[in-house]
């Protein structure tokens, strides 16, 4: 067992699960989507990205790119939230919530691909 691999797998799966937890629920109901969960998803996703830095293998490169996509989508979702809560006159409307959640849905897909790659890599390992 390799501690580095454990940490790596942990963060990837955690990013995906947090993202999923935020995503699940009615798409336009703000009470179904917790901001702390979004925050945790962003932080974990960022850490997962940094963990993929410096991996020169092909799979490492794909990991990094999917992770970057997830970060991008999650940060976009957070920015929309911030805009809705503080700048937009109407506040956090169902309309805005739908936008945020759909963005996080995109991130979920990217995180899901990350997990699939992780599983594929694990299965390919012949030790």
């Amino acid at each position: 067992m390799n501690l580095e691999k454990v940490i790596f797998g942990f963060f990837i799966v955690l990013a995906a699960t947090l993202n999923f937890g935020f995503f699940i629920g009615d798409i336009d109901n703000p009470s179904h989507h917790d901001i702390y969960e979004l925050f945790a998803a962003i932080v974990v996703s960022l850490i997962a990205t940094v963990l993929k830095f410096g991996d020169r293998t092909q799979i490492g490169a794909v990991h990094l790119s999917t992770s970057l996509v997830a970060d991008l989508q999650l940060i976009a979702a957070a920015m929309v939230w911030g805009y809705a809560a503080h700048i937009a006159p109407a506040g956090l409307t169902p309309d805005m919530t739908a936008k945020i959640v759909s963005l996080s849905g995109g991130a979920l897909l990217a995180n899901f691909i990350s997990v699939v790659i992780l599983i594929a890599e694990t299965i390919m390992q012949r030790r």
Partner: protein
Amino acid sequence: MTPLPRHQSIFFLIMRRLRAPLILLISIIAISVLGLTLSPGVDADGRVHYLSFFHAFYFISYTATTIGFGEILYDFSDQQRLWVTICIYLSVVGWAYTVGTVFSLLSDRSLRQAVQTQRFMRAVRRLREPFFLVCGYGETGRLICSALDRLGQRAVVVEMDENKVGEVDLHGYAADVPALAADASNPETLRFAGLTSPHCVGVIALTNDDSANLAIAIAARLLAPRLPALCRAESAETAANMASFGTRHIINPFEKFGDYLGLALQSPPAWQLLAWLTGLPGTTVEHHREPPRGKWILCGHGRFGRVMVQALDRKEVPLTIIDRHPPDDVDHRWVQGDGTGAPALNAAGVKDAVGIVAGTSSDVDNLSIAVTARELNRELFIVLRQNHYSNHALFDAFDADFNMVPSEIIAHECLAILTTPLLVPFLEEMKQRDEEWCNWLLKRLTGRFGWDVPTVWSERINLSRTPALYRRLMAGEDITLDALLRSPHNRNEYLACEAVYMERDDDDHLIMPRGETVVRAGDELLLVGRRAARSDLALCLANEHALTYVLTGEDLPGGWIWEKLAGRRKARVHRRLPG
């Protein structure tokens, strides 16, 4: 041999090293932001109020980056102040760690070398003109590089010693000289330095290590077989080994000097001519005294001394050797002792000798021998071996008759071979000729061009180099050298250059071709003359208008309209011709 760091890995190396600090920073900011959203505050009306993520992130951003704003929505409660205090110290720790890692990374030797290698490779890859690969930037390498620079040729330097590589930048060459601090005997290094580049036109191995030079010779032979490789070899075994690998030019400075001295003893004008033709560009060759024939003394029977003995023996010069140890051969008179003192010199018969060779491996000893010997015998012809180029001032001040500087000899030889391959057969031919002929040639050339080192270049008559002349020759015209070597500014004047050697396609060659020699396609000419003549001649050979003017005196019109008009006028003239 350690493999050089792969250039692609620099980016990844930095990222890998920064993994831990970045994760720490993210965690610290995340914890701070989270804590700030969780700690209760009060708003203006005294109600409990929590900072949103947006405000918390905003606050932490300016706190953690130490920008230090003072702008927040409401005054902080004590709970919030407590948390912010923790945040400030956390963020300081995070930044200190990150900045420290970045600095240690920047000062990392392997990273710096990787960056330098990458920069060097990029510079070499960007070279879009012919360049020479110079391995070893010692005294000889420096001379070669500055001579190449003066000739307008590019060079790439590979040198082991980092300090010497630094000197390349300080030297102030007209063109940029990419230099790398690496082991040139590593084939990978040579490949980085452009050995396999289509623009590389020659490899010069000048390191002071024979085995490294041999390794370069082998790498050049196998990786770039068509490139001419010039290698320095100080021992006969290395030279033989190089020769077995098909290295085209092997330069042993001692042997070369032995040849020179032999030539000087045999045919002084030929030697003068050789020195004049192969001098470093931009210098003036001094007119030397001719070495006299008679008894000679040799001080120092080392590597150099042995070669000198052979050279002098070949000319059957009676020789006395002064050395601390007895020489291996017993054919020569031997005096035990130190040439720096008068007793040994007197014992060797310095009073009635005509020449002395100060050939020990110590510059100070050599100078001391020369000074003592000259005091004992004013008329003595002194051959002085100078081991280090840096002692130049001392040797210049002494004014020996013949100064042997290995680095200069190698530099001259390399330049002659590299820049004008035709010069070597010409010099060989010249050495075969008698003294009278050489004297005539020397008088003729130096009378015309002076004692400044001339420009020596070769010109091949073919479609790519000399399109205008080639087309005329293909049309069946007979063009003589006399008609060709004229100034494009005024055709009544000759160009300040002379064709000294002509190689023809059918393995025939002419030395000092006469003016009425007809030029043929495929000929290669060796020309000696002034720098300006070279560009003038190149213009004549390549430009139709200039060539027509030089050959016929007719000024062709330049533009399209004028050409059309002239063509019509010419057609009219043709129509009037009978038949």
